């Protein structure tokens, strides 16, 4: 195939799309939300209709709703309304309804190409049949890409110009929606070449879109979230019991899942890994949009531990220079993964992280290998302080305040889980050290706060409480948020975006190769 042939195929794809009646109808439909964003302005405290003809404050709108007598003074009402707007028009209408309509509108591409009369003219040309097949796939992608570019760019400009809301991250949606459509369009292509029927192609593809998206992918995410939450809940419960027990250890639970449940979960895993991760496209948009937003000050993807933001005059510094507050205590603290300094109070914050250790101990009548707990590690540090620094037991303050109890809320409940912690506080060399140990899943953390010993107690307490209020383990009860947080470019394989995209593209490539193989065998 030479360059002229490639250009001809592209030209044909574009002309085929532009002449498509459904495409034209969809272009008109996407103009509706764009028009909406130009006629209605979502300002910080009010909604402005028709360039100032009518103005409604968010409070007055909420007051007419049942139970809506709520003040929006402390809320980002503008952000919330626009998020809801984009969720409806971009995520739902674009992501679900838009893809369905695009499936219906493009399903005829292949059956029409291979019907008698059309096929003879096209397939006698000196081009491999597979490239002609691919050109129809490309036409489908052009179809959805043009539509989404118009919709997303229009909405972005409308929000920017009329509402003064600049969210360039929304522009990623045109790429992710095209990617999503590409994953299902390949099924439409394969069914089209197998059955030569547009109706069959539409029905099977819609069935696949919903079956794969709603049952396999959403089912797998739900399973993962339930298991993850159960794991965290169990871990928190064990930490609490361990903190309350005399020696700081508890027995681990045994796996009691049945055979059938095991088979079901393995089948679900297999299907999830084979089929395209269509639901990831929406999360991918969220992640890509996040690239334009300010994230948390610190987060540990494995344990879900985060520091929301730096308070007071804290400023991030290089963590690598940090040393444990007690010499030769690296084993207790692990690696310094985050550090910040506050020159105002001459204080510092260091987050230490490592894998949870397992310890061989005599427990419940026999020798066992059990994971360390906040209490055991806190007590270990207290003992170390006595041994190495010669501190009296009375000079070491021990506290069991849980981590993440400051009450910050999100859509579905508290932002942080209440995780058992062990605080060890002591003074040495004119500095006051406050170390809070806690563990989640297989990770173990220490929040180290260091201030001058002579600092005003009230000031120190406020400073410490404000920092600890920003620290905690995420309580991810919202499925969407939970899964988005798991996904990442460097996450473990099952949550890894490279794997998600790679395996989905491999599926699409497999479908196209199968379609190409079938097309090659057809006698026209």
């Amino acid at each position: 195939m030479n360059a002229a042939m490639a250009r001809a195929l592209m030209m044909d794809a574009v002309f085929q799309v532009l002449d498509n009646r459904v495409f034209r109808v969809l272009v008109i439909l996407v103009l509706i939300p764009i028009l909406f964003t130009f006629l209605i302005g979502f300002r910080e405290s009010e909604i402005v209709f028709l360039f100032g003809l009518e103005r409604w404050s968010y409070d007055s709108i909420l007051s007419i709703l049942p139970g809506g007598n709520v003040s929006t003074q402390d809320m980002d009402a503008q952000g919330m309304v626009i998020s809801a707007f984009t969720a409806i028009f971009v995520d739902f209408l674009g992501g679900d309804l838009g893809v369905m309509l695009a499936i219906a509108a493009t399903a005829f591409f292949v059956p029409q190409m291979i019907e008698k009369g059309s096929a003879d003219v096209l397939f006698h040309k000196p081009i491999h049949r597979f490239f002609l097949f691919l050109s129809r796939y490309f036409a489908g992608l052009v179809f959805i890409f043009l539509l989404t570019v118009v919709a997303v760019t229009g909405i972005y400009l409308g929000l920017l110009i009329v509402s003064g809301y600049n969210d360039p991250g929304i522009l990623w949606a045109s790429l992710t929606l095209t990617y999503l459509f590409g994953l299902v369009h390949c099924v439409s292509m394969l069914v089209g070449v197998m059955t030569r029927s547009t109706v069959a192609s539409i029905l099977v593809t819609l069935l696949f879109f919903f079956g794969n998206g709603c049952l396999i992918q959403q089912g797998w995410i739900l399973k993962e979230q339930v298991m993850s939450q159960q794991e965290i809940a169990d871990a928190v419960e064990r930490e609490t019991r361990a903190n309350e027990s005399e020696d700081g250890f508890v027995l681990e639970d045994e796996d009691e899942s049945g055979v059938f449940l095991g088979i079901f979960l393995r089948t679900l895993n297999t299907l999830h890994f084979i089929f395209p991760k269509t639901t990831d496209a929406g999360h991918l948009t969220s992640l890509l949009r996040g690239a334009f937003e300010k994230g948390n000050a610190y987060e540990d993807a494995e344990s879900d531990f985060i520091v929301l933001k730096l308070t007071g005059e804290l400023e991030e510094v290089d963590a690598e220079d940090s040393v444990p507050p007690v010499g030769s205590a690296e084993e207790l603290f692990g690696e310094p993964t985050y550090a910040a300094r506050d020159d105002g109070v001459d204080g510092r914050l260091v987050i230490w992280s490592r894998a949870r250790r397992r310890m061989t101990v005599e427990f419940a009548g026999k020798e066992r290998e059990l994971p360390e707990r906040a209490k055991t590690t806190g007590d270990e540090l207290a003992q170390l302080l006595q041994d190495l620094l010669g501190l009296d037991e009375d000079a070491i303050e021990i506290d069991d305040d849980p981590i993440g109890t400051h009450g910050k809320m999100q859509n579905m409940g508290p932002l942080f889980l209440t995780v058992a912690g062990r605080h060890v506080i002591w003074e040495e060399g004119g500095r006051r050290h406050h170390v809070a140990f806690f563990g989640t899943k297989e990770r173990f953390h220490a929040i180290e706060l260091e201030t001058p010993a002579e600092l005003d107690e009230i000031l120190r307490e406020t400073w410490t409480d404000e920092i600890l209020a920003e620290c905690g383990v995420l309580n991810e009860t919202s499925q969407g948020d939970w899964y988005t947080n798991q996904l990442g470019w460097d996450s473990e394989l099952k949550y890894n975006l490279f794997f998600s995209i790679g395996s989905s593209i491999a599926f699409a490539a497999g479908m196209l190769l199968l379609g190409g193989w079938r097309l090659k065998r057809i006698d026209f």
Partner: protein
Amino acid sequence: MSETIISVRDLNKVYGQRRLLKFLGQGFRALKGVSLEVGRGSVFGLLGPNGAGKTTLIKILLGLVRGAEGHAQVFGLSAGDPRARRRVGYLPEAHRLPTYLTGRQVLTLYGMLSGREKSWLEERMPAWLDRVGMADSADRKIREYSKGMQQRIGLAQALIHEPELVFLDEPTDGIDPKGRAVIRGIIAELKDRGVTVFINSHLLMEVEMICDRVVIMDQGRIIREGTIDEMTPKTGAVRFDVNPIPDDLGQMFDLSGTGESDDKGFELTVNDGEIDAVIDKLRARGISIQGIYPRKLTLEESFIDVVKREHGE
């Protein structure tokens, strides 16, 4: 014969045959040992009743039908080879062009798919559009074309990239008499330029007028092959166009056997020596002789005769 462009030997094609059932001989045998050769610059006619295997043969040569057994080459390359297809133009029977394109866009698309650059095509396009009588309608969408217009633009797409070999399957289908004359003219020009034309048509008069050689196929086999002269031999009868027609024509000549008469003349089975005697008789009666023609079989008569004999009728 000049350079061989198409070479087919002992070609067989069975549709609907599954590999496991091959030994049972199942499936429909569309071609049964077909052999033929077509030389460069000739106009070759492929005739036969419906289902004879004509279109299958063309599609095998173009790579549209695969899995045939035997030898089939175009330009010395295996049938369906892209290098050979680049040098070929094809107007299929009952073709369907993309309705979302204009006539001009169709020519650009298919020309480029044959490997020609857009600029190269744009230089030659006005001449081709003019030649097929579509210059005024070139910027209208295909969906707005009549059947005849689609056939004309279809012919242009088969020729726009200036192929060396052209397959025309029912090229005059849906075309009015004036248009048919234009197509005959185009085929004559192609022949003059050394282009090989392979025609499959049911309009035998057209084939007789255009083709150098014809092949008659039936039930997947070639049952007759030859030049037009060989396919339309003299019958031994002679037609005399006269004025007036004598009332006692039956008494003057023996009209039994092949003899026929109409209001313009009559036909007699005579040898060359007897023609003078007939002329003398007519002149003696003062009858004007307006024409004397040795009677040949038309291609249509020859075709029907051959096919009937093949079927034992």
